[in-house]
């Protein structure tokens, strides 16, 4: 009955599922590991659905049939070693089936050897700093102006009119498609976490510690994420934007950045 009421509500919602606004699932993402993560997520989800159907099914049958109002006499059994062994053993087997692929993916997630590009990411209250290790490029990346103007209490701006409200930055990270990008994470003040769902990366930025993670984006595009570890009042206002571009475009970006930095240096 509870479920019925809720399912009808879900039906109402489904009727309005036109845009991405009613998104109900994890994105598959654009890296091999994000797809593997998605598959793991779905595999466990379907196991849960299957177990749920069995357990809730038995319970619902019982709720319908075994009521006092139907004049049934209660049974007197209260123990069965066989049953206990069965419903201990079956879950163990199911768990093993889940654990093996999960462990395989985890080994890959941790293997950040031999990167093509290495970027040192430092968390600040409340912005990110990026430093490309070999290219000598570095810059801060903070919340984009339109969002900054709209986010205050009584700002008087309709946030629906702002493109990518709270998910846009002034200077995004640019990385080449198909390259193995290693992220070296640390923090300058409190804990932060660097998260881009489509790249399946989430790693804490901890002061005094350098954490590693990596991704290899297979598709060109702009991927948005946010700080995922409470870091003070503007925790909700330090997004992460990664632009994945063709290798040639990446090289061009690196060259203009270097030129720009050189001009800045000589002007000073």
């Amino acid at each position, binding site marked *: 009955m509870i479920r019925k009421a809720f399912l009808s509500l879900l039906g109402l919602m489904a009727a309005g599922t036109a845009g991405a606004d009613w998104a109900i699932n994890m994105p598959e993402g654009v890296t091999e590991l994000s797809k*593997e993560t998605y598959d793991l997520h779905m595999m*466990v989800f379907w196991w849960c659905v299957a177990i749920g159907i069995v357990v809730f099914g038995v319970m619902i049958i019982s709720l319908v049939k*075994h*009521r006092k109002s139907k004049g049934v006499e209660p049974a007197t059994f209260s123990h069965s070693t066989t049953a206990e062994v069965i419903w201990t053993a079956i879950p163990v087997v199911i768990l093993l089936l889940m654990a093996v692929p*999960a462990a395989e993916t985890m080994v890959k997630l941790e293997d950040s050897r031999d990167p093509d590009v290495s970027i040192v990411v430092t968390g600040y209250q409340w912005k990110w700093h990026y430093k490309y290790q070999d290219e000598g490029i570095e810059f801060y990346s903070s919340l984009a102006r339109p969002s900054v103007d709209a986010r205050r209490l009584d700002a008087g701006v309709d946030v629906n009119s702002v493109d990518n409200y709270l998910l846009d930055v002034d200077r995004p990270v640019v990385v080449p498609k198909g390259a193995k990008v290693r992220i070296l994470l640390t923090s300058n003040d409190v804990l932060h976490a660097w998260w881009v769902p489509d790249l399946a990366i989430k790693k804490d930025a901890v002061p005094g510690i350098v954490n590693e993670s990596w991704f290899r984006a297979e598709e060109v595009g702009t991927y948005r994420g946010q700080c995922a570890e409470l870091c003070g009042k503007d925790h909700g*206002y330090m997004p992460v934007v990664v632009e994945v571009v063709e290798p040639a475009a990446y090289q061009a970006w690196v060259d203009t950045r270097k030129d720009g930095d050189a001009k800045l240096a000589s002007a000073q």
Partner: protein
Amino acid sequence: MTTTTVDGHAADHHDAHEDHGPPKGLKRWLFSTNHKDIGTMYLVFSLIMFFIGGAMAMVIRSELAVPGLQFVHPEFFNSMTTMHALIMVFGAVMPAFVGLANWMIPLMIGAPDMALPRMNNWSFWILPVAFGILLSTLLMPGGAPASGWTMYPPLVLQTGDAFPFLIFSVHLMGISSIMGAINVIVTIINMRAPDMTLLKMPMFVWMWLITAYLLIAVMPVLAGAVTMLLTDQFFGTSFFLAAGGGDPVMFQHIFWFFGHPEVYIMILPAFGVVSEIIPTFSRKKLFGHDSMVYAGSSIAFLSFIVWAHHMFTVGMPLTGQMFFMFATMLIAVPTGVKVFNWVATMWRGAMTFETPMLFSLAFVFLFTIGGFSGLMLAIAPADIQYHDTYFVVAHFHYVLVPGSIFAIMAGAYYWLPKWTGYYYSEKLGKTHFWLSTIFVNVTFFPQHFLGLAGMPRRIPDYSTQFADFNLVSSIGAFGFGLSQLIFVLVLLTAKKGAKADDRVWEGAHGLEWTVPSPAPWHTFTTPPKARIANEAFE
């Protein structure tokens, strides 16, 4: 103080245990050493905290109803999430279970009172002081604590004047819980009716015994962690400060060594309550009594070796992540055993659906859904995506609200006629149940979707793509909050119903149902024979 010496103290002592009624007025409550009075105070206190913490949840859900900031500043929003959690965990859920333990454990094991009645008084009266201090931080310069209930350094060290008060109040809550736990253990070990062996104890008593051991082991760990925060802030140590050679991640390890058993502290007594109610209304003995005990103990043991599953993104060695993933998945086994045993208890019973049973059934359904999302969270690579999103918020609210809180409600309805001597209004109770169950799902189910779609937790404002489900969730939250007022109405009219007999419920078994309703101020001044109460089952 022996009774052989004839002095004033001995006479007073003797008087207090005579079977005349309780003292009148404030003194009865302030100086109470009676387990029933203290139990009542715990329950009333936790209800008040439930509404204060609930009001904070309403602030949170108001702000999150639509994108953009409408009502509060981000700092205050963070204070609200922090205080909501601290108040609900330490002020509402834990004291409610201690209240039920105070009332019911002595009645269930045939003891005249708790073993250490004066300490019992202390452990209650520390609580209002602790929460008075915690709530007063709302008025302090720099605002109330805003670093989350997890109090992670270095952020927590940026708290304003509230910081030492936060630490002090957490210490007080810990002391109160530890004293409560000592009392429960000592009572259960030493005060059982003569022929009640450990394995004959009712499931509520068993689950509370296990919970009390967990409390003894982990509340001091939390106290140790916050002590180290205090010395880092004021006395120049650097346990958790990277600049001084400390390690911020160590706090997380210590905190979750407390924090994970803590979640079982909040759910094991709930298992106990539900294991009392389902057999009663199924008119059938609890299936697999002993395996329930073993499952509870296994959960308690495993809870000590899974803490770092809260920290998969913190940068642990691969082997560590593997260990914590596998250990966490294992918890599904004993938890599953419990659910299967409840279902087997219902199977071929003769069920009726009074309010306590309805809440217990919703508990089994919805706690299991929380268990499923828990299993998903155990899978480390997937957890990296779920971590610190609304998926986690949905998960722990499913196990805490329709889990712990529904069990507390179920217990309150179940034992209310024993406490007051009258049946509550079944109509009001059922209205309360249905509204709560519908709205709790409207509130928390969409949060799964939000988390999967990428909404982080603990943010006061969000990207417009998350707007729709947030609005649904906020509507549900207000519905749930308002529905709880019906429970207050139930309590206010609790003595207006029909007179309850000793047994109260047709299928009820156990010592607590052999004493009159309402239970007199003193019960079991001479130990009963447990067998008498259980005869129907033997």
